[in-house]
């Protein structure tokens, strides 16, 4: 068997505090050219601190090397495939960065009067309209800063609307195949969560919905395609059952990548949906930049959208704050503006046909992996899947090799591990989402890596138990780290820690 593992590049580096040497500076000032005045005159002593203890003193080159070396510890989508299921870690095209750095966008200020940033407002309005068209909804807010923030915003609108109708209701129904943030958002919005089980075809049980759907239920929070990657075929019927009792359908749009240009959630009865621009629309993800979780709604919920809204008056775009039924601001100013610029750049670069091709290729790539690995890894649900594929460790478990071992070993092959142990309804889940931006040759390397690992499980299980071997740090003791977390560096501990 050819060894396909690779060394990962990395440089050793201490904490920046540990690089400190007294008197080091990253700057030099020119001689004082104004009369010297006593410090006490400028800043009273009681407001001054003589020194900040252990504050790092470093030169410019120290700082640059420190952070550049740290960056080699990271794994990013620019370095390799990142098949983290349900996270849609697709490549972020650099044209987005070029556009976001254009002066008119990058140097505008949120306090700039509307008359002086008409182009920016026009961009926001255009993005709202495009997202409404893609999702088949009537109106969009771009304010929420992340997916879960969008969920909370959507639920608050549902609560406001139901309260206005006389009863905010008590419960939110959530299938066990939904995203993990959904129950937390519902609880935060004051709702009691009731779980609906999936049937043996990996879809939400309509029968169970029928028995649980009462006039006490505010909404059903559905992820479609769900976290098994399976499309909820009964969505129209489901929406009918919920609407009949006066409830709403909230769709978690995190998996929208599978549906772009193919079907529109708004056309199958969805009332509210949030989108993750950092998933579907290639804005930087997680630690790589602030997120954006726009929320799209149907007409009935439009008055409750967070404010302010952009309106046109006498040919000029302005902010409208006078909306009495609005749930109010959910974010300072109008969301993460430059992230929204990147999303629009991506959408316009792709165009309608391009977006459709995104979904088709994302589904094709996931199914290619599924087909190549089926049999070597257990496929708990044989039903057709869309943009992601979920395997389990059932076959490898018999050799005492588990999902965690497989995931850790993948790092030795130069890949980020997939999402593991989620969804909870699959024991030992490996949830793989390649996205459309991986080429066939990259997918083949990933498939070969997983085939090698399946073989290694048979030949040398111990190799997997101790993986990873070729990355900077070997396997961490996650149990001790979670039970006795050391969350903070303390001065004086540096000698022991290096």
């Amino acid at each position, binding site marked *: 068997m050819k060894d396909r593992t690779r060394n990962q590049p990395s440089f050793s580096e201490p904490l920046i505090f540990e690089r400190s040497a007294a008197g080091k500076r990253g700057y030099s000032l020119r001689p004082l050219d104004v009369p010297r005045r006593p410090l006490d005159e400028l800043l009273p002593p009681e407001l001054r601190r003589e020194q900040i203890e252990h504050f790092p003193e470093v030169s410019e080159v120290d700082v640059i090397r420190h952070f550049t070396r740290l960056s080699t510890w990271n794994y990013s989508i620019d370095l390799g495939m990142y098949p983290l299921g349900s996270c849609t870690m697709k490549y972020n095209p650099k044209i987005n960065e070029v556009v976001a750095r254009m002066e008119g966008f990058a140097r505008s200020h949120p306090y700039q009067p509307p008359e002086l940033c008409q182009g920016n407002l026009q961009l926001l309005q255009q993005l709202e309209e495009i997202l409404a068209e893609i999702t088949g909804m009537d109106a969009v807010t771009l304010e929420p800063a992340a997916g879960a923030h969008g969920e909370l915003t959507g639920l608050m609108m549902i609560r406001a609307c139901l309260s206005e109708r006389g009863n905010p209701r008590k419960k939110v129904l959530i299938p066990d195949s939904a995203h993990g943030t959904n129950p937390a958002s519902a609880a935060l919005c004051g709702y009691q969560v009731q779980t609906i089980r999936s049937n043996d075809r990996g879809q939400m049980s309509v029968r169970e919905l029928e028995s649980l759907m009462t006039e006490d239920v505010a909404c059903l929070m559905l992820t479609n395609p769900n976290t098994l990657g399976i499309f909820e075929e009964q969505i129209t019927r489901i929406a009918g059952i919920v609407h009949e009792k006066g409830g709403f359908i909230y769709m978690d749009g995190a998996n929208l990548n599978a549906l772009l240009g193919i079907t529109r959630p708004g056309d199958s009865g969805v009332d509210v949906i949030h989108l993750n621009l950092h998933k579907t629309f290639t804005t930087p993800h997680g630690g790589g930049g602030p997120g954006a979780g726009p929320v799209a709604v149907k007409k009935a919920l439009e008055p409750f959208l967070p404010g302010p809204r952009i309106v046109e008056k006498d040919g000029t775009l302005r902010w409208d704050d006078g909306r009495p039924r609005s749930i109010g601001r959910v974010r300072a100013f109008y969301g993460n503006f430059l992230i929204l610029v990147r999303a629009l750049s991506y959408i316009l670069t792709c165009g309608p046909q391009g977006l459709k091709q995104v979904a088709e290729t994302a589904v094709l790539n996931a199914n290619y992996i599924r087909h190549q690995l089926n049999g070597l890894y257990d496929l708990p649900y044989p039903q057709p899947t869309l943009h992601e594929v979920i395997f389990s460790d*059932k076959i490898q478990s018999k050799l005492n090799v588990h999902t965690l071992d497989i995931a850790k070993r993948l790092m030795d092959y130069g890949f980020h591990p997939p999402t593991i*142990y*989620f969804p*909870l309804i699959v*024991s*030992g889940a490996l949830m793989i989402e390649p996205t459309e931006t991986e080429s066939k040759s990259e997918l083949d390397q990933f498939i070969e890596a997983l085939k090698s690992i399946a073989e290694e499980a048979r030949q040398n299980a111990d190799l997997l138990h101790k993986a990873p071997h070729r990355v900077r740090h070997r396997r961490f003791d*996650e*149990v001790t780290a*979670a*039970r006795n977390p050391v969350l903070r560096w303390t001065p004086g501990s540096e000698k022991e820690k290096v």
Partner: protein
Amino acid sequence: MYPEDLLYSEEHEWISIQDHTGTIGITDYAQSELGDVVFVELPHVGDKLQAKEPFGSVESVKAVSEVYSPVSGEIVEVNDKLADKPEMINDDPYGNGWMVKVRLSDPAELEELFSAQEYEEYLAAKPEE
């Protein structure tokens, strides 16, 4: 693995009864499925429990799972030691790993629970995971 003097629920909790007070924990099967427990969230003394409703959660490195009450009643004691030593749930699920003590409000609910033998049969019939 499954002591004879305990009763068991479908959600993998056990309960032992003394007079009208039940001690509740999770089964050996549940702790082994979860893996190393790193955090336990429990209710407070005086809280009311509803049968088949969650009353707390157990977090392992793999996942967070809710713990369901097999009976209805009022919490009379909570195992505070689990805050510092959550591993007791793995090491001794039927002893030091107990979670709460409950004064039962409806002892008839106990009739719906499994005996040790029934629970083992239930586990055996479960689709292999």
